[in-house]
């Protein structure tokens, strides 16, 4: 008979572990209870931390990229090593893009002149006029699909033309540049100007609505705060409908450029353009509207001059990987003298706070698990003592010390697996209960999430690994004691 530890022997050892567990159910259940509570606590708070982090940092704040601004906007010079460059212009964009940690750079520019928007009558029953605050971003920054046929595209951007390369529909070739074709207001211009165009009343040329995207949080804000606050009040405020993205996409409104409630532009005459909401994107301005960058640059050039059109207000910098964010931040701030946007700094602070709170609760969970491990040590030690003769017999029958170690650690493994499963279930049930209470007892508010918890598969793996770690730690000493039992002493003790 071979003494080598075959797989058959290992599976037979597994059967012995099962029998032992069955025999000492109560002891093992008590040992496992503490571990299960610890795992439940760990799982609950890790998921809660992850959920809060996701809600706050990915919905309220946009992370995943760095947004840097020119500190000169608040001070006299750019500073740092950048020397002669006087602001966030194309040279700086190029220089940032060449950094090895950078995947892409997206410049952003705000409207730098007063403007207002008027419309919404089809939804609200009466047109509203509001200040129009907007910025411009490159079209390829928008990840979300734009379903409106107009698209997030600057249709009025002049293109070059020649005899062999004619202008698209709605344009005519003037010299070597495409200019909007003439049209007659009130007539059907779909054939001459194209399906998405209209005839501009003052200019009497083909024109295209300015495509606008908005941040989805604005709908949250409207439905969660404004609509709730005005519910039941006099006027249109009391009858505001609950809005959705589907209802709003395709909504057209007028943009009054060069004049708003707060001021009037002296450089160029007031002008009205048609705009259309073409979609929603997380990349859009959180409290305002977002247009294609080339539209904003063209408008800024007309109303604020060339310098305003050629200088960006911030750069959205995407790192090649998450690991690169920290070194990239250092290079952007220390080498190029840029600074993180206030919003990003705030997100960093909140992220740190959430991490600290999660860490604190996870420490509590680890303390519970540590106490459970001590409990396991105690219980397993008692059981080893009770089974001294049995272990001595096993050794007399040919079990080496290692087999005895494996037997005890095998029992600890089963306790860990069952405790982890119980703990994960308890944690999930507690989270489910809290979500249920949160959704039924707490009213609507902006950014209210469907669930406070962020479940990830690695959390279950973490729970399992932690349970195994603490159970093995707890059983290690008893296993060594069991292996050290002298068969002669154990079997001859009467």
């Amino acid at each position, binding site marked *: *008979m*071979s*003494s*080598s*530890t*075959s797989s*058959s*022997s290992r*599976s*037979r*050892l597994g*059967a*012995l572990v099962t*029998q032992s567990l*069955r*025999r000492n159910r109560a002891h093992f259940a008590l040992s496992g209870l503490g571990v299960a509570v610890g795992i439940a606590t760990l799982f609950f708070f890790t998921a809660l931390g992850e959920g809060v982090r996701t809600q706050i940092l990915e919905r309220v704040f946009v992370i995943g990229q760095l947004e840097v601004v020119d500190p000169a906007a608040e001070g006299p010079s750019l500073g740092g090593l950048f020397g002669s460059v006087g602001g966030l212009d194309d040279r700086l964009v190029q220089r940032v893009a060449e950094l090895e940690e950078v995947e892409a750079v997206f410049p952003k520019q705000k409207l730098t002149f007063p403007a207002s928007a008027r419309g919404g009558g089809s939804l609200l029953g009466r047109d509203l006029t509001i200040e129009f605050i907007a910025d411009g971003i490159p079209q390829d920054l928008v990840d979300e699909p734009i379903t409106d046929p107009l698209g997030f595209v600057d249709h009025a951007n002049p293109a070059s033309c020649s005899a062999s390369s004619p202008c698209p529909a709605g344009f005519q070739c003037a010299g070597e540049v495409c200019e909007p074709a003439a049209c007659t207001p009130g007539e059907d211009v779909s054939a001459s100007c194209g399906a998405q165009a209209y005839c501009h009343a003052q200019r009497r040329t083909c024109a295209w609505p300015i495509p606008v995207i908005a941040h989805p949080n604005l709908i949250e804000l409207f439905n969660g705060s404004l609509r709730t606050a005005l519910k039941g009040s006099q006027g249109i405020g009391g009858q505001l409908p609950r809005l959705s993205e589907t209802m709003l996409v395709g909504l057209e409104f007028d943009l009054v450029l060069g004049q708003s409630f707060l001021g009037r532009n002296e450089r160029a005459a007031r002008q009205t353009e048609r705009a259309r909401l073409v979609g929603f994107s997380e990349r859009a301005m959180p409290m305002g509207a977002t247009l294609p960058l080339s539209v904003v640059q063209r408008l800024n050039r007309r109303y604020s001059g060339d310098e305003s059109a050629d200088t960006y207000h911030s750069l959205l910098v995407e790192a090649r990987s998450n690991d690169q964010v920290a070194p990239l931040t250092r290079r952007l701030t220390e080498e190029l003298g840029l600074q993180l946007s206030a919003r990003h700094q705030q997100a960093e602070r909140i992220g740190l706070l959430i991490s600290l709170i999660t860490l604190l609760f996870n420490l509590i969970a680890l303390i519970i698990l540590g106490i459970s491990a001590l409990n396991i040590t105690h219980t397993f030690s008692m059981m080893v003592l009770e089974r001294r*003769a*049995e272990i001595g*017999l*096993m*050794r*007399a*029958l*040919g*079990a*080496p*010390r*290692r*087999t005895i170690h494996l037997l005890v650690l095998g029992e600890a493994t089963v306790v860990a697996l069952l405790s982890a499963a119980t703990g994960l279930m308890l944690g999930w049930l507690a989270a489910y209960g809290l979500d249920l209470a949160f959704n039924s007892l707490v009213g609507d508010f902006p950014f209210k999430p469907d669930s406070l918890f962020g479940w990830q598969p690695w959390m279950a793996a973490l729970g399992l690994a932690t349970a195994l770690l603490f159970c093995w730690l707890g059983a290690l000493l008893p296993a060594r004691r069991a292996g050290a039992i*002298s*068969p*002669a002493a154990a*079997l*001859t003790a*009467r």
Partner: protein
Amino acid sequence: MNLVVHNLTRQFHAGEREVTALDAITLTIEGGEFVAIVGRSGSGKTTLLNAIGGLDTDYQGSVTLGGPDAPALHTLSERELAATRQRHLGYVFQQFNLLNHLSAAENVALPSFFGGGLSAANAHQRALNLLDSVGLKHLADARPPQLSGGQKQRVAIARALFAEPDILLCDEPTGSLDRDTGLQILEIFERLNREQGITVILVTHEQHVAARARRRVVLDQGKLVEDVAQTPLTPEVA
């Protein structure tokens, strides 16, 4: 398989006092012998058996199993010693040492849990055969608390035989049994010795049990005081 005990001395500490349990024992047991080790309580019988069985290696001198080139037990690694115990030695104890949560068949098959490579089904079949050989196949599923003392000891013998040992080490195997049941157990040992050539080394303080062996080794205060061949008595005479 020969067993050679050479100049074996075993001392224990009793507080500050040192007690000599075995004092320079030298002994050779040939394969196939039936030896009774006798002596009064505290004479060192069980200590000698533990040393012979590799359950205790903390002694001076040597114990060797096998031919002249075989290594002494105390020089083996813990793993090698465990393997030697499993391959060559079977143990029968006075208190049976059966595991109450296992059935009789599972107790018999217990050595298979620690090696040997037998599948569960094969181990169970082998356990049933061994139980059959000691007349207990019908009680294969019974748990030890459901068995009489004699039945328990027969289960323990079947377990000792599971790995087909060369030497059977029996420590007061009839000590917890009435005289008639004890004699039945002795008959099993005799049969195993006679028919299978298994070496039986039996520790006892009962003279009628020792009388069934073909060789008698007497210990007194840790010393070997007598080592004689004898004609075993039949059960009727004993």
